[in-house]
């Protein structure tokens, strides 16, 4: 299915670095790496009742990107749209000491943060490509 679109829901959590990385990686995949293929869904809107986001997640495969092991994005997707195709947990991918460290403002991002986000972004792409290939 060459036209398959994939939804990505990032946790964007505020309490630790994982939230910032999830957000950066998702934006990068949507804007650059898999533009047109990936649609980012807004988690707060999704939770608060956004019909467009919920309908999309019912119809198309969804990957969630979680900062930590609480897996908030996955939990809400299962609750409102049935299920997720795949999940990335940054605390597992990059380690808890990184993911759970203090949240960083976009203003204070350093080279190392961009590199971490790139690793997450690549992982998202891998999962997107796998879904598309199916």
């Amino acid at each position: 299915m060459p036209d398959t679109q994939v939804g990505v829901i990032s946790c964007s959590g505020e309490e630790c670095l994982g939230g910032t990385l999830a957000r950066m990686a998702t934006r990068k995949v949507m804007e650059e790496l898999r533009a047109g293929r990936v649609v980012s869904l807004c988690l707060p809107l999704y939770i608060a009742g956004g019909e467009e986001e919920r309908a999309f997640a019912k119809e198309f495969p969804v990957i969630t990107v979680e900062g930590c092991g609480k897996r908030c994005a996955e939990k809400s997707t299962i609750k409102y749209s049935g299920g997720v195709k795949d999940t990335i947990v940054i605390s597992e991918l990059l380690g808890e000491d990184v993911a759970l460290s203090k949240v960083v403002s976009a203003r204070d991002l350093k080279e190392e943060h961009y590199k971490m986000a790139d690793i997450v972004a690549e992982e998202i792409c891998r999962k997107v490509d796998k879904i598309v290939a199916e």
Partner: protein
Amino acid sequence: MSKVKVIPCSGIGKVFGLMARETALQVTDKLSPDTTETVCLASIVTGDDAARAKVEGCTCITIDGCPALCSAKSVESVGGIVKAKYRAVDETRNHRGKNAGTGTALTEDGWQIVDEFAEKVAAKAEELVEEGKNNA
């Protein structure tokens, strides 16, 4: 009194979500770290009782990006006492013609709006702290 919770939506689709997020981080991390703190919006709604307890009955300020008011709605739904609701889109309205950036990154102008916005929210938080003391 526990710290005032400053909870942004952090919406990912538009610049306003990023502005809300950065404003909240600025308030809780730089301007008023002793009296305010932020909480993961998604975790208080989807999480267990412990997560919910972080806001239930607490004084909260919500910072939303757009008129969908996701943070305000969600915080209220889990029993947070929302004393003030802000929207980044309103702050941007006061700077007509300025391009604030995108959901990925803010421009100089975007940061300037965030800085002013954060001052305003921090002042409100201080006011709520005083109010809390007087009522105690």
